[in-house]
């Protein structure tokens, strides 16, 4: 069996669930917020490294993002990935999921043959869970989303478990295939210090590709290459009216029940 080629998609995200949006552009404001590796993507790297330990594999991590996203790539190398590619170019900025998956897909084509692509299920900032499936479509490979277990890998197939709302589905996929994985799949290891430091050195096996390296024109990628544009972003306003009920506890309770019945929140059955 030839060495398995695994590609892992890793996104750097702001370390907060309360992302602020730029009211003008509708884009995320990333300045001043600490960046981390998207949590599901750590599980994706861990899955790849466990497969490497079990079956032997070469792992390439691929990330699209601003220059500082190099840290996500370095961390993945620290965990055991062999090679890193950062797609970074001002032209990539403002990409929607279509442009993002197209850019990642083209980079994967440039990388050549692969057996398996592993992505996180969802990014905690963009939150769409679309990138994995869209990359699979772009490359025309089989896919399984919400993977919570990897049972077996054979030269031509992989057997995985999928987390569904009301159960677990076991699937056999023909390779090459793409998986998106969920947190329960594994417990990601911490980077090995020696590998982490090596990833920071000049001679580290990390390459940075821009739009031209992928043969893209500016209009193909980023904001310009996106099919969707954010017209406006806003936080839904929840209208809250509060009313204080006066009087004794008994009076207040009676008044409260009356109001609940009035609003038809409960039905009177007596």
């Amino acid at each position, binding site marked *: 069996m030839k060495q398995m080629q695994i590609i892992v998609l890793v996104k750097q995200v702001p370390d907060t669930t309360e992302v602020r949006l730029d009211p003008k552009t509708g884009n995320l404001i990333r300045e001043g917020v*600490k960046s981390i590796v998207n949590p599901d993507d750590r599980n994706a790297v861990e899955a790849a490294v466990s497969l490497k330990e079990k079956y032997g594999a070469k792992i390439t991590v691929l990330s699209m993002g601003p*220059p500082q996203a*190099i*840290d996500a*790539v*370095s*961390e993945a190398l*620290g965990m055991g990935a062999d090679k890193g590619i*950062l797609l*970074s170019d001002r032209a990539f900025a403002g990409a929607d999921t279509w442009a993002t998956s197209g850019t990642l897909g083209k980079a994967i084509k440039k990388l050549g043959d692969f057996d398996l692509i592993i992505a996180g299920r969802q990014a905690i900032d963009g939150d769409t869970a679309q990138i994995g499936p869209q990359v699979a479509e772009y490359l025309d490979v089989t896919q399984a989303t919400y993977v919570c277990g990897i049972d077996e890998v054979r030269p031509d197939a992989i057997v995985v478990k999928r987390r569904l709302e009301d159960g677990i589905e076991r699937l056999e996929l023909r390779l090459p295939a793409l998986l998106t994985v969920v947190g329960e799949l594994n417990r990601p*290891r*911490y*980077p*090995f*210090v*020696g*590998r*982490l*430091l*090596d*990833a*920071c*050195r*000049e001679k*580290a096996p*990390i390459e*940075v590709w821009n739009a031209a390296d992928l043969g893209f024109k500016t209009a193909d990628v980023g904001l310009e290459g996106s099919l969707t544009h954010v017209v406006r972003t806003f936080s839904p306003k929840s209208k809250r009216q509060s009313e204080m009920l006066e009087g004794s506890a008994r009076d207040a309770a009676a008044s409260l029940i009356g109001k609940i019945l009035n609003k038809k929140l409960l039905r009177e059955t007596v």
Partner: protein
Amino acid sequence: MIRSNAEELLRSNIGRFVDSELIPKAQEIDARGEFPMEMFKKIGDMGVFGIRYPKNKGGSGGNTTLFCIICEEIARGLMSMGAITAMQCLMGTNFLFHYGTDEMRERYFLPAMKGEKVACFCLTEPEAGSDLGNVSTIARKTADGYVINGMKTWVTNGPVADFYTVLCQTDPEKKFRGLNFFFIPRQTPGVSVSKPFDLLGTRTTLISELAFSDVKIPHHHMLGAEGLGMDNLLSILSEIRTMTAALAVGLQRAALEDSIRYAHERAQFGKTIANYQLIQAKIANMAVNLEASRLMTYKAAKMIDNKIQCLKEASMAKYFATEGACKAGDEVTRIFGAYGYSMEYSAQRYYRDNRFLLYGGGTHEILQPNIAKWVGL
């Protein structure tokens, strides 16, 4: 070329480990008062212990600055874990690494790097604390090696260590020139270990006495050229002091962060105590001490990395950062009110654990006259 900054990346990753693995368990580990083997192994698995040693020799290829970052982060979570880590990275393995044979390195150093063997360092004796010239553990040279007799005390990790780096006197006439380090595996006949001491702080760092009675070791177990024991010790003294300063910075950070959080949470007289100027003054002083300690510590660390002589800077950093940690441990227990006196919160631990920093690497009564001398007194 785009590359990650090693110092920042290491800090964020060790910090993440400390936040998610160590801090949630710190109180429990401290209360149990046993050697934290599970945590020790986890830290070993990450390759932390090899931070000062080159990659091609079983290390992780870091330097003193990176070592200090690790010490600071781990001490922020639990001082005793920081102390154990520092022992394993520096004093406990340094002489074995530099002066041991390949066979000794293979059997002891490499497993120690992975957290499979525990190291320790034995200088102090009942009659030789600050005054190391008074070390009286004797290593008598014979035809096939050395015979060692004597007693060591205050040995961090003593009860659990697999091998010892021991300072012995080979010829009392020669005084300092007679002091040499020896490598003694625990299994060697004639070695006995006392029960762990009952300690005020860092309660999970086990400390004991060691007694050597006609312990026979081969010649090549002398670590370093004969007569150079004290010189070799001096060669890592700046690093020991800087590392201790880094541990102190870690404790200050923990105390400050907890203080700020608590000051925002606790309300009295209708306002959170963060509103009171006397609380603000404490927080401000803690923050200023922390900032200054940090600058002094990493200045010394960088000097070591750049091979610049810095015993003065390292001693100043150890002194200042440790005093800062003692003040922080004091203030945090005041800001917490009665809860600072409760074993349920970490504040009490910062108060007890800061004392650990006072003794090793030179007491402040030893450092101060030296600093005075170095600045021209």
